Every structure is written in structure tokens, then in C-alpha cells.
């Protein structure tokens, strides 16, 4: 990141969630971001993960300025290069655990006959193969988190 700033307008008030951040994370590095609630951690992560665009400044990934990329290219990065496990899990409530994982693999154009098999394998890895037909509302918080991990880890399977 180079001088990345993200501002939000709330009526007449401008909230600066990320203020001129310079950051460099190398391949293989493990970085933990900590701060009090409302300090801009989520906003920063959203900029890094191409979920949002900075109000000013630049965000690069693998040498490419994310600001120069269109929707398809950004979507492809999110599919193949980034994975998120959200604080609220963000599972789709009307889909079963299996269908949530399948939704994550859908953009990769996995053949239909392989889609179910690969999705079940991902759920098996997190110990939820037997709960694949359950809706998120019927899973415990921990189980929902494991489904979220399974479907976000699908990025390295395509």
C-alpha cells in the first residue's frame, strides 16, 4: 500500500477509517493486525483484499495496481489469490453447508460432476462431512466458522 486512505461520508461528517497507510507484506509473511474496535482494521483488510477501493493512494498486489483492474480481474484475484474468513462468517443462510462451499467453487467453472465431490471433500477436511445438508442456522457457531474456513480455503483448489 502506498498512502492508502479510505474515507466514509456519514451525512456532513467525513470518517477517515484508513489514513495514509504505507504497508508492504512479502510473500510467505504472516502479519497480525490488532487495534481497538473502530480503528479501521476491517477497512484496511478490505482494501488489501480488493473488496473495496481506497479514496486516495494505491494498493498493489504482485506488482499490479488494483486500481487499474476491472471487475473481472478483481473477481479473479478474489477467487484465486485471496481468501477471507469473516468475523460473522457470512454464510448464505438459505443454502446448506455443502451449497455454500459449492457457491465458492462455482466461478471456477468446476464441472458439475466434480463440484459436489470437491465440496464434500473440503467439508470432510474440517470435520463437517456429516453436516453437509444442514443450513447455517442449524449449525453451531464453531461449525459455521469451520464451513467458512472450508469455503474460503477453496481458493487454492482451483
Amino acid at each position, binding site marked *: 500500500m502506498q498512502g492508502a486512505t479510505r474515507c466514509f461520508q456519514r451525512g456532513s461528517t467525513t470518517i477517515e477509517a484508513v489514513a495514509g497507510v504505507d504497508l508492504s507484506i512479502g510473500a510467505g509473511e504472516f502479519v497480525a493486525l490488532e487495534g481497538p474496535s473502530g480503528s479501521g482494521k476491517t477497512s484496511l483488510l478490505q482494501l488489501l483484499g480488493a473488496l*473495496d477501493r481506497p479514496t486516495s493512494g494505491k494498493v498493489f498486489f504482485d506488482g499490479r495496481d488494483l486500481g487499474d483492474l476491472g471487475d473481472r480481474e478483481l473477481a479473479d484475484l478474489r477467487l484465486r489469490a485471496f481468501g477471507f474468513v469473516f468475523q460473522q462468517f457470512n454464510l448464505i443462510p438459505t443454502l446448506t453447508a455443502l451449497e455454500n462451499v459449492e457457491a465458492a467453487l462455482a*466461478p471456477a467453472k468446476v464441472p458439475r460432476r466434480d463440484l459436489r465431490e470437491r465440496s464434500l471433500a473440503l467439508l470432510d477436511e474440517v470435520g463437517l462431512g456429516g453436516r453437509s445438508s444442514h443450513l447455517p442456522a442449524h449449525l453451531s457457531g464453531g461449525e459455521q466458522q469451520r464451513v467458512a474456513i472450508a469455503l474460503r480455503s477453496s481458493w487454492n483448489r482451483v
Partner: protein
Amino acid sequence: MHEFGTLKALGWNQWLVVRQVVGESLAQGVAGGLLGVLLGIVIATAIGAFGPTLTANSRVGGGDLLGLGDVTARTLTDQVALTAPDAITAVLAGLALAVAGGLIAGAAGALRAARLRPADALRNVE
């Protein structure tokens, strides 16, 4: 809207989101249209079977010449037996309207959802 943010965070591009929403809207339009056609046929059949009749009276002539209006006036009574059209064109038109309505509403919502940045969609709390 929040769900579209999740899908986009997973790597769904705008086109996939639009296709998903329009597909769902099309399915709902077809299902709603078929249900409406079925209901329409049932109601039309019931109207035809019971044949309720509407009656209307109208006063003709009379006037007020020499106070003899009431003597010369006549009352005409019209009766109309209610029927409901069951022509195939009406059925198809109804079905087409249902599907078209679903597609238009779905497309409008889909385009709006697809254009949102994932972060903005995720911030949309239902």
C-alpha cells in the same frame, strides 16, 4: 444484498451475480405465472358454472309534460350473465406478463447489486 457481497468476496464477478438474480427472477415469474393461470382457470370455471347475473334498471321516456311523466315513462330491465374469458390468448398474455414483470424487476435489482463493491454490499445489514 449482503449475500451478494459474500458471493463477490468469493470471486463472483458482476456477470455471474446478474445471471444468478435474473435466473431466480425468471423461475419465480414462471412459477407465479403458472399459479396465476391455474387460479384463473379455477375462478373462470366457477363463474361459468354458477353464472351469476347482474341486473340493471333504467327509466326511459316520461318527461314532465303536464305532470304525466310517471304515466308515460317505461322501465327497462337489462340482465347480464357474468362469464369469464378462457381464451388461450388471455392465458398466454397473463403468463407472459408475469414472466416479463419478474425479469424486469430481477434485472433492475441484479444490476444494482452487481455494481456494488463487495465491501459496500457486506456493510448492507438486513
